[in-house]
């Protein structure tokens, strides 16, 4: 196991208490702001000190409160990409990159040149950070990070400071630039799509502890808890009452739902992503189907999001189901009697 983290830190009324491990892979950390995800990265880098616990990487102990080990950041060989990039404003791009190259390096100039080439910065060597665009600044920060030859890379909200139209391109550039890196890479974000595209595994943080962890696809398919489901983008969540081993009642939606596999006894909620909800103009033979009326619709760029509710559903948002449908399909359906189907293979059982 490459990276092992098990730390606790108290900050006023907030307590960070997380334990996770990561192989030499790209791991995403998803969480709302203030959930402790950046703090965790700072503890790994040595910028913050946990109250207790340990951090180990490839057999090296970076921090261990029991053994009283707390390696200073400069000896941890951890590369950290700051949200603000933290470039040195008084230095040129080249000097910014050169400053982090290890002393043991026999030819620092060629290391810097390689790093600049990798991030397409060749023409910018003598520019200062404030003469660069946001995207260029990020590339300089990444080049500086790579030139310092870290064992582990931590990216703290790498795209939050950029315009959305830049993100897509930079995401691919970053993936490209980091592709030859062989260690653990942790990336913190509140944007699930970003993490889904870039990372192999995922940790979902909620209020200082880990809510769900595992392979990226597994966590999105089966988030496990309400918080993880919400963070992973599930819009429809409702209280569940277990009726039998494979049926439950969705209390707020007033629907009885069948499931393909036995229901875990600790299930308290059921959820479904809005693009998994189906709409029909007739009851048909589909399971988990109920007549509904339309409450509202939102015209998106490429789809409609319809909000529907069953006859006896709870009032307010709890009883509503959001469904995303194609534009043409919705225009055919909207004036007719409407039935909602919650396909059983897409139902999320949550704690």
């Amino acid at each position, binding site marked *: 196991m490459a990276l092992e983290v098990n730390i606790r830190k108290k900050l006023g009324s907030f307590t960070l208490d997380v334990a996770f491990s990561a192989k030499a892979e790209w791991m995403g950390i998803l969480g709302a702001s203030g959930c402790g995800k950046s703090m965790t990265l700072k503890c790994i880098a*040595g910028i913050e000190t946990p109250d207790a616990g340990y951090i180990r990487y490839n057999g090296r102990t970076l921090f261990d409160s029991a053994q009283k080990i707390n390696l200073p950041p400069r000896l941890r*060989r951890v590369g950290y990409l700051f949200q*603000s990039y933290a470039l*040195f404003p*008084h230095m040129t791009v080249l000097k910014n990159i050169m400053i982090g190259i290890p002393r043991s390096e026999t030819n620092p100039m060629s290391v810097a040149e390689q790093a600049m080439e990798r991030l397409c910065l060749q023409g910018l060597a003598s520019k*200062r950070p404030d*003469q660069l665009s946001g995207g260029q600044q990020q590339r300089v920060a990444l080049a500086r990070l790579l030139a310092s030859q870290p064992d582990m890379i931590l990216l703290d909200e790498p795209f939050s400071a950029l315009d959305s139209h830049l993100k897509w391109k930079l995401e691919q550039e970053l993936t490209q630039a980091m592709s030859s890196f062989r260690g653990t890479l942790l990336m913190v974000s509140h944007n699930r799509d970003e993490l889904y595209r870039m990372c192999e595994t995922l940790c979902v943080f909620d209020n200082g502890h880990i809510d769900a962890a595992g392979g990226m696809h597994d966590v999105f398919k089966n988030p496990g808890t309400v918080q993880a489901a919400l963070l992973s983008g599930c819009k429809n969540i409702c209280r569940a009452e277990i009726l039998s081993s494979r049926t439950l009642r969705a209390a707020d939606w007033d629907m009885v739902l069948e499931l393909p596999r036995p229901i875990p006894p600790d299930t308290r909620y059921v959820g479904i992503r809005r693009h998994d909800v189906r709409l029909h103009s007739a009851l048909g033979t589909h399971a988990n189907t109920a007549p509904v009326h339309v409450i509202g619709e939102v015209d998106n760029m490429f789809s409609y999001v319809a909000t529907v509710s069953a006859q006896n559903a709870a009032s307010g948002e709890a009883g509503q189901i959001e469904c995303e449908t194609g534009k043409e399909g919705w225009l055919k359906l909207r004036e007719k009697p409407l039935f909602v189907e919650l396909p059983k293979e897409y139902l999320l059982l949550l704690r």
Partner: protein
Amino acid sequence: MKALASPPHPYRTANRLITVSGSRASGNPAVIVFFSINKEAAMDYSPLWISLKVALLATIFTFVFGILAARYVVRLKRFQGLIDGLFTLPMILPPTVVGFILLLIFGKNGWIGKLLGLMNVTVVFTWIAAVIAATVVSFPILYRTVRGAFEEVDADMIHAARTLGLKESAIFFRIVLPNVVPSLIAGTILAFARALGEFGTTIMIAGNIPGRTQTMAVAVYTAVQAGNRELAYQWMLIICAISFSSMFLINLVNSRHRRNSVRRGVL
């Protein structure tokens, strides 16, 4: 006059000075005349050289100690307020009180005075005392300016430097200091101006010995008190010229720095 100008002992001299002033206070009792000036004689420029020597040396000491103190206080985890208060004290206290405290420390019976006495060194009522006075009084100005600038330096920049493997000393000299240059220049000018204009503390600890410890600020006072308006005007003009031209020079340096920064886009 000669005896007053080179006193055998500073304290005795001080006593005698008061006696002299008392005996000569026939016209105006409030006027304290330390020595008379021959109006016809060529002007003695020694206060100018003494002032420049003292202010320059004091600024150098203040520059080094001010930066070190600012770095020390910024990095303190406890008692920050207490130490900061101590370092700022010379700016808040009346200069005469600072001078009196220095007299207690550097005097014959003071902690440092005794130590120096063992080595046969007397500091009080020498130009070195004037340097000490100017340093102590100008120190808080530079210290506070630089400390404020240190606290403004982006914490993430320091953290980034640490994760890149830089030692603390390298971070200080290569990252922190270059980013506070404008404040450093401003603090140094103000400290120099304060050192050049020092009066109260200087007269307490260095006295008013022409040719040895009499600075321009003290010379103006002495000339006015002696009723020598002409000499007072001359010193006033010289002081104004020096102050103005040093400010002008430094503003020039500053604006050049700023122009470079604008080209780089720092400001």
